[in-house]
Structures are given as structure tokens and as C-alpha cells.
């Protein structure tokens, strides 16, 4: 039986991590179908049908789907699930909110946040905030699996021509009402997908000092991250938080400035390809995961870092 992928989108376009989830789905079974639930989402539906790994697309629209409420989404997917062996979605807040609701309706034990498909019924997933990896075999007839998007490469986004089938809307769940969404807009790359992330911790000492981080991020075309300590201290808003309770990032370059490296922060960034740590405490745990460590006062090191970057003829963007 085939795999059913739940597409994440914003009604205008697919969210990038749908492509990573599609890759994971295709590693479970080459027969991948996808479902997209929304309102006025024609462009996103078209994008989904153009993913070469997706053979067929189910599209359903309705005003009660506009804000991605799990209570409205779950019945649609539960109904479709009959013909599928696996239901797959990204383990971001969209999928985390939605998938267990589907799994409970299907009476199946969900496998959350997998980082590797070992076989169609066996998966690798981090536990204890990534301090251990568990190999899990599911014995349920239907498997609900959420995938950690940064552990799978995005699939090709063009060239496919999956058939699109419109399906009927489910009834509205009237006990949950969407009120508002406050999205943090930024010209910078998104934290979850940026090639370079520059993060500050409690060592920054104030929100004003985060300007130093911003300057470097601008210079490198990087996203701005932060440790939970910096967020809790009010230096920066929590959508910048990297770690177990924030975002998991896997950039080519992660620069940790004034971050000691608590377990919960390391869980969110230690898979980065190259890690740089700048910290005045030479014993800080962050150095144990850093490829390049610089033991220095960050208020001296950051201006020097800018100076050195300015000397370079070219900087990769």
C-alpha cells in the first residue's frame, strides 16, 4: 500500500519542509500520494502536483481549513487513510499538533520525529533531546510517522505532474475558533532553512547588544538564532530560539556567540556541518561540539570578526 503525505502550506505556497517530508515518504515506499487541505490554495496544490515523487494529489478546500486547525484537518485524513499503509508529515508545530489526533482516531501508536527510514516499519529517532537514538519498529497495520525535516534533503520541486483529485470537505469542528496569527516577518533567511546561523546567548548581556549579532548576520546573509537563556532574559523574541524547545537547525555554518552550550541548546544545533563557538569561558560545554573554538571576550571578538569579514574579497551567500 502507498504512503500518504500531508502537505504543509500557507494557502499561497507549499512550506519548504513539505519537500523534506516528501523525500522521507518516498524512502518508505515509492508510491507517494499527498493530501493538501486549505482554502483558496490552488497555487500550493499545483506546486504539490509538480513534485516528481508525488504520484497523486488529493485537494480539499473549505473556509474552516483556512487556518490549519487540527480538529478540522484530522477527519479528512482519517477518511483517506483507509487506502494507505503510512501517513507522513513534518515534525514541526503543524505536524506535531495534527498527527497524534489522526493516530488516535486510527488507533495506531505514532512514531514521532524520525531522522532515518531504516525499513518501511523501522525508524531511527532521537530521544532525550538527541542524547540517545532509538531504533523503533512499528507493529501497527497503519503507521503514523512524523519526520524531522532537517534530517532529510528536500525533493525535486518541479517536473512532476501528479493527478489532482478534489475530495469532499468534512464538517466544521465548531468548538475551536481561530482568532489571529502573529507572524514575525524578516528579510533574513528563515532560521530553520538558513545556510548560516549566527546565535547569541546570555553572554550578550542585553537586547541592545544583539545588534552585534545582527551586523554579522547581515554581512553573512545569515539567520539569527538565540539560546533559551537569551530568550528568557528578554534579549530577543522566542521565534529565534534554537534548541530542544525551540527550532532544530542544521546549517552549513553555526556560529554560537556567548552561548555556554546547555544540553537543551546543543540538541538544536549539534548536527550543523561546521560549528564555531566564541566564549570567554574555555570550559564551556559548547566547545565540546565546536569545530573551531575561540576563547575570547565576545565584545572584543565580534568587532574584530566584522573587521576580518570586511577584509575578504568575497563572501559566499
Amino acid at each position, binding site marked *: 500500500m502507498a504512503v500518504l503525505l500531508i502537505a504543509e502550506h500557507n494557502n499561497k505556497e507549499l512550506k519548504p519542509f513539505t519537500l523534506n517530508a516528501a523525500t522521507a515518504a518516498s524512502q518508505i515506499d515509492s508510491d507517494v500520494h499527498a493530501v493538501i487541505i486549505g482554502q483558496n490554495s490552488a497555487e500550493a496544490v499545483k506546486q504539490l502536483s509538480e513534485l516528481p515523487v508525488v504520484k497523486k494529489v488529493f485537494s480539499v478546500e473549505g473556509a474552516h481549513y483556512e487556518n490549519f486547525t*487540527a*480538529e478540522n484537518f484530522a477527519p479528512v485524513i482519517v477518511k483517506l487513510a483507509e487506502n494507505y499503509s503510512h501517513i507522513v508529515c513534518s515534525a514541526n*508545530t*503543524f505536524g*506535531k499538533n495534527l498527527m*497524534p*489526533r489522526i*493516530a*488516535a482516531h486510527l488507533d495506531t*501508536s*505514532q*512514531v*514521532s520525529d524520525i531522522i532515518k527510514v531504516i525499513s518501511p516499519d523501522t525508524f531511527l529517532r532521537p*530521544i*532525550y*533531546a538527541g*542524547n*540517545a537514538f*532509538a*531504533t*523503533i*519498529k*512499528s*507493529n*501497527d497495520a497503519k503507521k503514523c510517522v512524523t519526520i524531522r525535516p532537517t534530517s532529510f534533503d528536500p525533493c525535486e520541486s518541479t517536473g512532476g505532474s501528479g493527478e489532482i483529485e478534489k475530495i469532499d470537505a468534512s464538517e466544521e469542528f465548531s*468548538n*475551536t*475558533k*481561530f*482568532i489571529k*496569527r*502573529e*507572524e*514575525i516577518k524578516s528579510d533574513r533567511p528563515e532560521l530553520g532553512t538558513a545556510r548560516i546561523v549566527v546565535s547569541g546567548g546570555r553572554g550578550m548581556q542585553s537586547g541592545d547588544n544583539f545588534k552585534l549579532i545582527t551586523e554579522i548576520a547581515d554581512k*553573512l546573509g545569515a539567520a539569527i538564532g538565540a539560546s533559551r537563556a537569551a530568550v528568557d532574559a528578554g534579549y530577543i523574541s*522566542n*521565534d529565534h530560539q534554537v534548541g*530542544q524547545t525551540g*527550532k532544530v537547525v542544521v546549517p*552549513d*555554518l553555526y556560529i554560537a556567540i556567548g552561548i555556554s552550550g546547555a*544540553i537543551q541548546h546543543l540538541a538544536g544545533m*549539534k548536527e550543523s*556541518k*561546521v560549528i*564555531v563557538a566564541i566564549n570567554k569561558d574555555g570550559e564551556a560545554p559548547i*566547545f565540546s*561540539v*565546536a*569545530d*573551531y573554538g575561540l*576563547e*575570547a571576550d565576545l565584545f572584543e*571578538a565580534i568587532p*574584530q570578526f566584522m*573587521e*576580518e*569579514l570586511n577584509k*575578504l574579497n568575497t563572501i*559566499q551567500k
Partner: protein
Amino acid sequence: MKILVAVKRVIDYNVQIRVKEDGTGVVTDNVKMSTNPPDDNAIEEAVKIKEAGKATEVVAITVGEQKAQETVRKALAVGADRGIHVKADGILEPLAVSKILQKIVDKEKPDLVFMGKQAIDDDCNQTGQMLSALLNWPQATFASKIDVKDNKLEVTREIDEGLETIEINVPAIVTCDLRLNEPRYASLPNIMKAKKKPIEEIAASDLGVDVSPRLEQLKVEEPPKRKAGIKVANVAELVQKLKNEAKVI
């Protein structure tokens, strides 16, 4: 309004996890255990709502082995009125726990069920959503702000894009984010008083729920270690290495 709060006993968040050599799990013997951190936020919020006069009773519940009762006792020490301990041994998957909680909800008839958004041991992030599916109740996951308004809650949720606000009718499930509040510490007199508060013990087997695991944990291993890096002497060397050795800038 009556609030049921589910709490879980996990390895303390400050403990460095050690994987057992035989690959069957992580070492839990002689390791400090505590209440799952966001479950503390869930208790705190319920107690605050009661203190504000908007709830009449806060009931703390845990599911697990005998020692799990410590988490209920701690909840009683910070303001919960009474406790329930559903006794069950062995691995309990979120699906099994949500089925047990469903039975307790049928019996206790709370207006709200609170719990942490995720347990820091298995990191599943499922139980609240599953319970709300089984009950066909609204769910407000990853809550960082809760306003109680008569028979409705306005909840601000932490989502990847920023913040989302929803309104849900009671009865409802709320899973709590660490940012929801600052859990209080139990004072010594309150710890003493909590010892006198009742905890009802129920055997999971008496609830008629199949809790047998559906998943097999084949192996638990240490994550691959990062290769030890180097310390650079100064910023110039760092930038040179990033440019010419790592080739990332």
C-alpha cells in the same frame, strides 16, 4: 470549573543521559528523577486559575509505576487539591496513556485537562492531542498564554511562524509550553500539608484498557560523536579557517 492535570516522572532535565551498554535503553538506576518540566507549568497554571477564583478544584494525575506517585505528591505540594495514581508497569506509549486518561476523564468529568506539551524522555509530543481526539474535545497545544473566559479559553500557542491565538470551548485539552509561566517552589509547610492530601490509587488493569506496546524499541544507542575540533588563537585565524579550510564563508 474542575481541572485535571497530568504529570509524568522523567529523568531530571539536568542529568546527563547515559545509554546502557547492552543497547536496551538509558540508565535510570540511581539517577535523579523529577516531574517532566512542562508538566510543572501545567500544574502551576491550573493552580493560578484556581487562585484567581476561576476553578474550584485541581486534580493531579499520573500513570506509571509506584514511584511515579512522587510527581503527584509534588503537585499537591504546590497547590493541587487531590491526586490520582493509575498504576501500570513497563513501557507505556502515549496512545495507552491517553486511553487511560480518557477513562479517568469519563469518571472525573473535568472541564479542562492540562499537561506538558512533550515529555523530555521519549520526546513524543502526542498524549494531549491523542486524548483530545479520543474525547472529541478541542485542543490547544504549545500554550504560552491562557485566558479563562466563562466557558471558553483564549489560548496563545507557540508555532513555528510566531504566535497563534485560538478560542476553545470547554471541555478542552491544553498542552503547556515552558513559557506559559514560572512554576513556584513548594514551601516546607506545604510539602508537609501535601502529605495529608488524598491520592487515589487505581490499577490500570481495572480500567479495561489495552496498554500493551505497539512499538518495539529494537536498540538505543549513543548519537554519533562530533570529531573534536580545535581552538583558534584569534579572530584572524578563525576567519581564515572558515574561508580556506571549512570553505563556508
